[in-house]
């Protein structure tokens, strides 16, 4: 039989194979078109802005843009001795514009980061430069403050020339690159970020652990009780789950305050004296207690959905073969719940590590986490590039955990309610 006649044709004369391929392709395009609107929307409004955070975090054009003439004039300066007259003139002209536009303050702060004591020198120059005469700016500037004769200050300006920097990332782990370009740690009393990172991981870890210890028994109870009881008890898990986060935080603020019910209870039982009520809010205790209660449903639900699928006859079989209840539990039941434990723990851990609202309200100074620092830089200091850098560091951590989650459990297995 020749290959020509072997081909099966459809009614319109096209080979079946080809026709199927076309249909397949059509279906592929159809499926993709359905996903496309959301995918495009997310890419434009979400993925690209996150990428934008990266360019923002390494962006360092602020000083470069403020001193355009200076940096042009500095190109030929080797940085060994004091710069020539052109650099002084260019700096004077740039700075004059900044003072006129009332933006000199930003430059002062930025250069002060680079070299301590720069701020006062620049402030003095801002006052004196109004009386400057034309020509010989080098002399005039050096007369304003003796530090202008120190080449270190001019080198500090030159160091800010590149438009890109990874200094924000170094700052995020309490390091900086010093005058010789070496990466060193900041002085001990200023190492705040590393404490925050450690605390964030610590809080996330312990909250996950507490959630696990509390969720395991109740998930087991919910999974083994008859439907009519377990449905009722399930409300205890689901109602907090659906209730506003702020409402739950507010209730903890009421409970944990010094005249609050928890303290009243301790006084009533005689554990603490009335005039010596412990501070349970605005510190780590508050963060732990409130976050554990708030994230507990996220641990119970995956555990429950796994335990529900475990047949009770397995435990009975174990026991009938001579295992004590404890051995039957650890050898039979517990290993079967591991997928649920993995899902719950990683879910809670990921949520906890990026928590913001609750620590900000009940955490006080010793209970705030890295997210609070990010928000602080976004809203108060307006150091957006630093906020972006820390955000991306946090995101990297979360993505690593998420990757593990995907390997262990699979993203498709996330279950809600």
């Amino acid at each position, binding site marked *: 039989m020749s290959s020509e006649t072997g081909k099966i044709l459809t009614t319109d004369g096209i080979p079946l194979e080809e026709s199927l391929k076309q249909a397949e392709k059509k279906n592929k395009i159809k*499926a993709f078109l*359905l996903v*496309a609107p959301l995918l495009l929307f997310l890419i434009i409004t979400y993925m690209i802005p996150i990428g*934008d*955070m990266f360019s*923002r975090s390494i962006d360092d054009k602020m000083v470069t843009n403020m001193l355009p003439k200076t940096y042009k004039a500095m190109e030929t300066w080797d940085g060994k001795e004091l710069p020539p007259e052109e650099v002084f003139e260019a700096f004077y002209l740039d700075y004059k514009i900044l003072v006129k536009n009332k933006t000199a303050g930003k430059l002062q702060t930025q250069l002060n980061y680079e070299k301590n004591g720069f701020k006062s020198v620049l402030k003095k120059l801002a006052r004196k430069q109004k009386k400057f005469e034309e020509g010989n700016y080098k002399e005039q500037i050096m007369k304003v403050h003796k530090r202008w004769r120190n080449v270190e200050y001019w080198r500090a300006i030159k160091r800010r020339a590149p438009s890109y920097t990874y200094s924000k990332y170094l700052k995020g782990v309490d390091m900086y690159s010093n005058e010789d370009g070496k990466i060193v740690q900041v002085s001990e009393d200023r190492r705040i970020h590393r404490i925050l990172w450690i605390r964030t991981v610590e809080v996330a870890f312990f909250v996950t652990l507490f959630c696990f210890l509390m969720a395991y028994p109740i998930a087991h*109870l919910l999974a083994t009780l008859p439907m009519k009881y377990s449905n009722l008890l399930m409300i205890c898990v689901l109602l907090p789950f659906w209730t*506003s986060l702020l409402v739950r935080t*507010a209730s903890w603020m009421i409970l944990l305050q010094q005249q609050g*019910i928890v303290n009243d209870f301790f006084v009533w039982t005689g554990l603490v004296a009335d005039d010596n009520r412990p501070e349970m809010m605005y510190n780590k205790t508050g963060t732990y207690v409130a976050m554990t209660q708030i994230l507990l449903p996220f641990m119970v639900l995956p555990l429950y959905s796994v335990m529900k699928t475990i047949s009770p006859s397995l435990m009975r079989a174990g026991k009938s073969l001579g295992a004590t209840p404890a051995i039957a539990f650890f050898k039979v039941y517990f290993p079967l719940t591991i997928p649920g434990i993995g899902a719950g723990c990683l879910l809670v851990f990921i949520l906890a590590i990026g928590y913001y609202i609750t620590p900000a309200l009940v955490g006080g100074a010793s209970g705030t986490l890295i997210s609070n620092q990010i928000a602080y830089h976004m809203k108060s200091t307006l150091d957006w590039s630093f906020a972006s850098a820390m955000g991306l560091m946090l995101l990297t951590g979360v993505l690593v955990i998420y990757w593990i989650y995907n390997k262990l459990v699979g993203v498709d297995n996330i279950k809600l309610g």
Partner: protein
Amino acid sequence: MALPKYTEPHYRIWHYFYLLICGCVFFFLIAPLFVIFPLSFNAEEFLVFSDGMKRLDPDAFSLRWYKDMIYGTKNPWGLAARNSFIIAIFATLGSIILGTLAALGLSSRHMPYKGLIMAILISPMIVPLIISGVAIFFFMAKVGLAATHLGIILAHIILGTPFVVITVTATLSGFDHSITRAASSLGSSPYNTFMKITLPLILPGVISGGLFAFVTSFDEVVVVLFLAGLDNTTIPIQMWTGLREQLSPTILAVATCLILLSVFILLTAELLRRRSERLRGINR
């Protein structure tokens, strides 16, 4: 869960101990919510149970904070509630439409790069809110949508769609595709097939995803904190400000209303879940 008669005593003790632990955890989960309820009827300004309340003296209870919530001078709650509902409703609609379409595409077996696309679509749920907030704020500021309702609605669509995608995909996992093919072979147009066959069957999943999206938007504060101006303050923003500055019982009145709302949403979600399981034949 009654124990069989032959249970040994130490196991019996262990069992009651286990029940006690479970009871404590359930108490820990649910009790904090019930503190708010009586305190919102406090006649006094403090957030502690007054002596009168402990004696159940009727004079110690009042509705003044509810009145303050509704009629109070410089009352921010009316505007906040209106904004919250407008934003949440539009964000839910947007999430449902985009999310359902995407879920339909994703559950088709012809979909290329399924894993990667799924990962992108649910990423807003995994990425910490604070980072989403920063990124979305940069975007909205760039396109001039910061401090507008539209900006916040778009932001909440981003955060809400993963829930719709997940719930609808789950509903579609038990979906028998031969019935849509049957409809097509009987001459139904794709639109008609979707409206008359597919949609009614996946509706429970769509609505429960929509509920998630609604609650996400209605309760969302981190992203709104970055985006909102004075005109688009929402209930969570007002509560946040109130909790930070001065805990007034008015907040508790609002909180009580929010708890009632969540009870309503919980009941709806539960009914839908059961219906969906029944339709998919999962119920045991």
